[in-house]
């Protein structure tokens, strides 16, 4: 294509019909090396990824074929006795992620609108830096904060919610006999607390995707809305939010992917159980990544294979979510550009 040495075949003037010049080009030595190196780098990246995928599915196959389809609905986890499944851990993972999203979605939506629509230049770039910095804070630091500060301060809130909204089954906290419990000990290490901490970790991802989508809303339509006498909120509601819809959905899904894979903060907060716990305020939940982090050490070869299977399921779920999200974001972007 763009190569420096172009082979030129000159035709003799005697020929009646001049031959067509060959437009074929031949890259010089340096370019050939460059292309090879680049292709090799791309190939290595793909190879690493494929190695992860192939290795995971290969090793997981052993456990999956032993457990059969029951792997999907068994709650307990004891590969040694041959009875293990991801129903409980996957349920816990999804619960924590949904709680995190419920907190992070309004927070990040409002922050993204604040950054893209309301604050002027200097404050704007400062807030963008703050969001970026938040994404770089190690999760173990959030975990420390969750264990040593948040836990004690959130328990009264949990108690209050379960007292006044206990008639909604999800918020009730009952003991084995079904009686309502109110003492603080029943509210520690719950999915709710883990969800709050995870929400702080996913807000930056969500905010930056949404902010980019909002900033692409066309200027003409914004000014049109303002010129028709709408307030700033009216303009946001009628122009910016419809245009940023793809960004909102895509950013939320990307954040969901991160929330599902979060490990250390969750491990530090929860007390792991292997049964489905619908009561999000009650002690005890679990997640796939916490399961791997807690069990890998004592696992036998077969146990490791079972953990691989759990990891594979988690990976496939986040993969699907991520691809859907990036498709949505990409589509919404191209739509905004065509206008």
């Amino acid at each position, binding site marked *: 294509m*763009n*190569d*420096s040495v172009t082979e030129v075949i000159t035709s003799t003037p005697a020929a009646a019909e001049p031959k067509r010049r060959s437009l074929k080009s031949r*890259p*010089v030595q*340096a*370019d050939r090396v*460059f*292309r090879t*190196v*680049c*292709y090799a*780098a*791309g190939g290595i*990246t*793909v190879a*690493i990824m494929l*190695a*992860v995928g192939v*290795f995971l599915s290969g090793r997981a196959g052993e456990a999956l074929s032993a457990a059969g389809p029951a792997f999907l609905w068994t709650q307990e986890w004891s590969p040694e006795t041959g009875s293990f499944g991801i129903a409980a851990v996957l349920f816990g993972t999804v619960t924590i992620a949904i709680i995190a999203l419920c907190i992070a979605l309004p*927070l990040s939506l*409002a922050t993204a609108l604040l950054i893209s629509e*309301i604050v002027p230049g200097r404050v704007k770039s400062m807030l963008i830096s*703050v*969001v*970026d*910095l*938040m994404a*770089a*804070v*190690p*999760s*173990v*630091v959030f975990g*420390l*904060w969750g264990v*040593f500060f948040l836990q004690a*301060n959130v*328990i*009264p*809130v949990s108690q*209050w919610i379960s007292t006044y909204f206990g008639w909604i089954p999800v918020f009730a906290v009952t003991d084995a006999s079904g009686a309502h419990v109110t003492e603080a000990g029943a509210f520690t290490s719950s999915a709710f607390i883990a969800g709050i901490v995870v929400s*702080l970790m996913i807000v930056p991802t969500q905010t930056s995707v949404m902010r980019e989508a909002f900033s692409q809303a066309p200027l003409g339509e914004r000014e049109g809305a303002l010129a028709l006498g709408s*307030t700033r909120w009216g303009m946001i509601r009628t122009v910016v939010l419809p245009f940023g819809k793809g960004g909102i959905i895509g950013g939320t899904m990307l954040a969901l992917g991160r929330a*599902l*894979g979060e*490990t*250390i903060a969750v491990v530090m907060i929860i007390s792991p159980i292997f049964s489905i716990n619908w009561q999000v305020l009650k002690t005890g939940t679990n997640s796939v*990544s916490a399961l*791997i*982090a807690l069990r*890998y050490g004592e696992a036998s070869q077969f146990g*490791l294979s079972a953990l691989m299977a759990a*990891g594979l399921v*988690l*990976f496939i779920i986040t*993969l699907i979510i*991520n*691809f859907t999200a*990036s498709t949505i974001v990409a589509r919404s972007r191209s739509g905004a550009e065509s206008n």
Partner: protein
Amino acid sequence: MTILEAPAEVRPEEPAGPRRTEIPHRKAEVGSRRDLRSVPLDDKFNVLGAAAAGLALATLLFGWLTPMTGFIGWLVISFIGFLAIYAVLSSLRADRLTVSERIMTALFYSAGAILLSALVFVLGFTVVRGVPALVNPNFFVETMKLAGPLDPLTMGGIWHAIVGTLIQISIALIITIPLGITTAVFLNEIGGKFARFVRTISDAMTALPSIVAGLFIYAAIITLVTHQRSGFAAALAISVMMLPIIIRASDVVLRLVPNNLREASYALGTTRWRTVWTVVLPTSRSGLVTAVILGTARGIGETSPVLLTSGVTAELNLNPFTGPMISLPLQVFDFVKSPEPNMIVRGFGAAATLVLLVLALFLIARVIGGRGPGQLSDRQRRAAAEGSARDLRRIEASHVLPPITFDARDADVSGRSVRRRPPKGNPPADLEDRVAQRAAEPVSTENPTTEESPS
């Protein structure tokens, strides 16, 4: 509406000679500048009053009227009280639209405030709780080899974890920087079907949960090959995590390089390789550095891949290939598992060290990454101007015009002086003037998109 033709005015007599731009004479009085942005006084008062009332209401509810307790509950109640009272106060003077606008603006600002205060609080909490450990200098230079859980804070430290972190992240960077940036160059400069496939795969790789990356290295490298945990395995796990981050960030940066720079380079007859090396990469240098530093900050803080691969030790281990080598995040995790208060304080101290490290990396990235592609710092612009002047002298020297001499070594420049060493010492102050005088046409010696010649 009818548009009336303006009556032909009698123009004032124009002065002879060429027309010049004139500042029109102002006849009208200029009034004081109108303030278009500030909030009216009563609205300011509404905000303050509503805030005070909300706080008072929450304190009243929590302290006297109801048995509610807890700091967070108090905050939530006072915020809801603030919003309600603010809405009522605004509706006294404004219509429904204005009230909803004000309420929404208040909500947006409070979301930003929540985020900012959460970040400051999380970081501040870590540092403050870690201060008792951080004030002892031994915390940074000793290891935990001889210090038990019950020992005071004046014994033991996290030197081994700091060294472990630095070794692991260095190995990870040695792997990921060349691989990641070359892959990003491949995606942008070569393209094609395979590049699209690589991009899809690297996007998929960002979805890989970090614990699964750790599990992969644990099962593939540790249980099958080395049979022991080591710093190198941890570095590999971090690399698997960091690679897609760096590829993605560099890809975005390289895409920002203006295409006309590439085309100009090709038009001059360069090879693709030289275009990448002398135009694309230097133009996006600051962005690439930022991408790498932010990737490093993410990699340093990753705990879960390291948890499975590096192993826990209390001793200093400088060899990444044998024996466990602990890193800072894992050390934090290990410290706070202990019920002893001193160990927990050490955990906070290690976490504070980690936070400060990430913060420092982040600040460096901000300082470097403040400029877009092709924007030069003052020093780079001076270097570019100097390079242009040098080229001009070279052209003059090899053509009719007599050379400018200000330095004996630079007088006899040859035609191949592009790679010549830069002249020693400062060029004379009037260099630019002399160059401009000598040249047949005035030549701009400052071109913001020209990079300095490769050294």
